[in-house]
Each structure stands twice: as C-alpha cells, then as structure tokens.
C-alpha cells in the first residue's frame, strides 16, 4: 500500500504560511479620556483579563510618551508593551536630533496610526485600541486609533465598552473648559457605569492628568458602588420566579 502524501501550499490552504495574530490572550478593557481646561484627563482600570478570568489586577494601561503625551491602551497587553518599545525608540531618536524640537501628541498619534494600519494590511494586527492625548504649546490634542487603523480626533474618546457606555454620557455632559474637579467627577461617573456593566472591568483604576507641565498619574484607587435601590432588594415582587 502506498502512503498518500498531503500537499499543502498557499493555494490549497491560503492561511498556511502567513503569520497572523488570530486572537488576544491577556486583555485590558475600556480607556476613557476627555479634554479639560488645562489639558487632558484619561482614565483606565488596572485589569488584565485572561479570557473570562480577571487574572491580573495591577496592570498599568496608561503610560507617558515623551514630554507631551500620554498613551492609554485596551486589548492585548503584550502588544501594548511592544508599542511602548516602538515609542521609546521614536522618542529616543527624536531626542538625539537635539534640535530643540520634540514630537507632539499629533505627531505621535500619526505614527501610531501608521503603525496600526500597516500591521493591519499584513493581516497581523497589533490587537489594541489606543487613546493618545497631549498638550503642546497650549494646544490640547486627543485622538484614538483602533487595531485596524481607524483613527480620529475629538474632545472625548473611549475604547471598547467605553464607546457604548461612556461616550453617550460625555456627549450630554462634556463642555468646554471643564475644571479638574469637574473632569475627574465626569470620568468617575463613566468608570462607575463601566464597572457596573462591563464584565471585564475591575474596581481598581487610575486617572492620568496631562497638562503643559507634564503628566501625573494617580495612585490606584477603587470606586464606591451603589446597590440601595428598593427594586434591588426585592426584584421579583409581583412577579415571582422572574429575575
């Protein structure tokens, strides 16, 4: 009996030799950011989920980039760590020019857009949704880039669930020249809703403040939640067996 040999090549199995990221492993959930009077406020929780398990609870998903920007990421954490390395190199080369100029948030946003889009074209995306915010020479900038290279700029941006839950709140309640206190309260309102309604949210978050002076990131903290509705105590009164 002769053995039949399976021949696989790019025609019989088009995906055989191409490398592609098929699925993420350790992921972060929403990032929410707004422009306010002095610059940018960005919030993200510190969760790294592994499928449905809330595996890591102290992951910093926002990092400063150069002097003028802050990057927040959701999606695959290893890809975010790699993006930070790319940005380190970018900022290093920018500094090595030693010409008094430095990359502003708009430039970094553009770099990230190209990075994400070119990977998407090779069918090997960096599995992240990014939020890039910054202030340079008094100009505030806030943009986002998705894993397929969709990018835009706005007064408030969010990733993932934040788009569905936080943006509507921000569309109603955001206004020009919010004070720091108003901005933080607004972000916390968004983060609390996400905590209630996003399964991959964890109750430990940080808020990053970015102004002309630079970036500060808060210590990790938790939000109080409210469960004192009468209907929560007795949800099935009048409809026994329901939920």
């Amino acid at each position, binding site marked *: 009996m002769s053995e039949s040999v399976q021949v696989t090549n790019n025609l019989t199995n088009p995906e055989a030799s191409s*490398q*592609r*990221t*098929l*699925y*993420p*492993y*350790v992921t972060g959930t929403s990032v929410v950011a707004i422009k306010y009077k002095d610059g940018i406020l960005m919030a993200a929780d510190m969760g*790294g989920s*592994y*499928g*449905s*398990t809330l*595996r*890591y609870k*102290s*992951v910093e998903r926002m990092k400063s980039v150069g002097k003028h920007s802050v990057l927040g990421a959701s999606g*695959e*954490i*290893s890809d975010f*760590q*790699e993006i930070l390395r790319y940005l380190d190199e970018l900022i290093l080369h920018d500094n090595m020019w030693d010409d008094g100029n430095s990359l502003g948030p708009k430039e970094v946003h553009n770099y990230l857009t190209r990075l994400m889009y070119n990977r998407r074209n090779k069918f090997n995306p960096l599995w992240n949704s990014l939020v890039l915010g910054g202030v340079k020479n008094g100009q505030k900038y806030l943009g986002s880039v998705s894993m397929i290279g969709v990018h835009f700029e706005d007064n408030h941006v969010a990733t993932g669930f934040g788009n569905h839950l936080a943006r509507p709140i921000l569309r109603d309640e955001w206004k020009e020249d919010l004070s720091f206190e108003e901005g933080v309260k607004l972000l916390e309102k968004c983060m609390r809703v996400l905590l209630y309604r996003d399964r991959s949210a964890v109750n430990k978050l940080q808020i990053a403040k970015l102004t002309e002076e630079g970036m500060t990131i808060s210590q990790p903290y938790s939000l109080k939640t409210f469960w004192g509705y009468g209907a929560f105590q007795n949800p099935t009164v009048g409809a026994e067996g329901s939920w």
Partner: protein
Amino acid sequence: MENMDLNAPHSMGTTIIGVTYDGGVVLGADSRTSTGMYVANRASDKITQLTDNVYICRSGSAADSQIVSDYVRYFLHQHTIQLGQPATVKVAANLVRLLSYNNKNMLQTGIIVGGWDKYEGGKIYGVPLGGTIIEQPFAIGGSGSSYLYGFFDQAWKEGMSKDEAEQLVVKAVSLAIARDGASGGVVRTVIINSDGVTRNFYPGDTLPLWHEELEPQNSLLDILNAPAPEPMNI
C-alpha cells in the same frame, strides 16, 4: 486551534507557582506531564535552571517551554560573560518575553521567572501566553492555577518568612493537584535567595489530605486485621 472562542483561554496541564518573600523567592510546581489522558512522566521537574540565581517554572507544551528555556539559558550565558557579573532576574524575564512574544503564533507556553539578584533582591515575573511580561509579588500558572485564585486571594500576605512562603506554595500546589486532573505527582520547590539555591521534594504521603481524601493504606487486609477500636466511655 481555529475558531477558538475568544473567551476561553487554552488550558495547560500543570500547576506552577512563584512567590516572593522577605529575602528571596520560592518557586513550586507539580510533577505530572501528560500526553492526552496518559501520564507520560509522573516525576518531571518543571522548575528549570537558567543561571545560578534565576530559575523558571514551565507550563503548557513541554516541547515549547523546554526550547524557550534552552535558548534563554544560552543567551543569558553569553550575556553574563559580557556583563562580567550575574544576570539580573529582569533581564532573564525579558529574554523569555522576547521569545514568547515574537513567536506567539507558534508557542503555547506560560512561564514564571523567579530569582534573586543583588540589585532588586527576590523578584517574580509572569510571562503568560502571548508574551506579556508582568512583575508580581506572586504568580500562579498552568491549568491547576484556576483552583488557586481564591486561595491566594485569601492566604497571600506581604512580608512572609522563607518557611511561611514555602509552606504556602506546598499547600497551594497540593490543593491544585487534588482538583486538577492535569496536575499530580510530587511537589517540588526551589528557594532562591542571597545564600543560594535550595531544592526540596515533597512526595504525596507528606502532603495533607483534603476533602474526601483518605489516609493511604498498604492493603485492605491491614484495615480488616486492625485491632478493634476501644469502646467509648459514655
């Protein structure tokens, strides 16, 4: 592997743990290697040496984790020669990350890197599937770790002594073995600190019994022939 549910991470046969304590680290693992339902090796050593002061716990594909550890050992050896002093745990962990990340499509291994160096003391780094690197006070991995998240949430505390840390690790691996079919055999630990490295071995009969587990006997005959119990004084 195709059409994988995004919410179902790959389960890996093994329980591995790394814990920092005041002065160093304790690494722990079970000893079961399975191929399908068959236990290929019931006394494997999943805690592998990279340098004098850095060890790793391997989980997932045995082949993948072995080849990664071989490459990292090789790179670290060269790095040590160039540097002129022992490599740091952080460098070792980042080398593991590099290989795991850049070959993420092909590799299926989760690794815990633990060791001691003179700059940072005892450190534990987790490098799960995908190649994320994350420094942690303690790390758990492998399929058996699913049963230990709640345990560590309750039992872990900062600033344990060496013995407390080792006891915690042995208890945890033993609990995971009790419930995870892919974990079993003996519990191995490796303690790394400024004094050096200590390897310990805990066979099943030295471990505590958990729920619904019975004291092991040589034979039924011993039970049957046991002397009659003393009558109670009521």
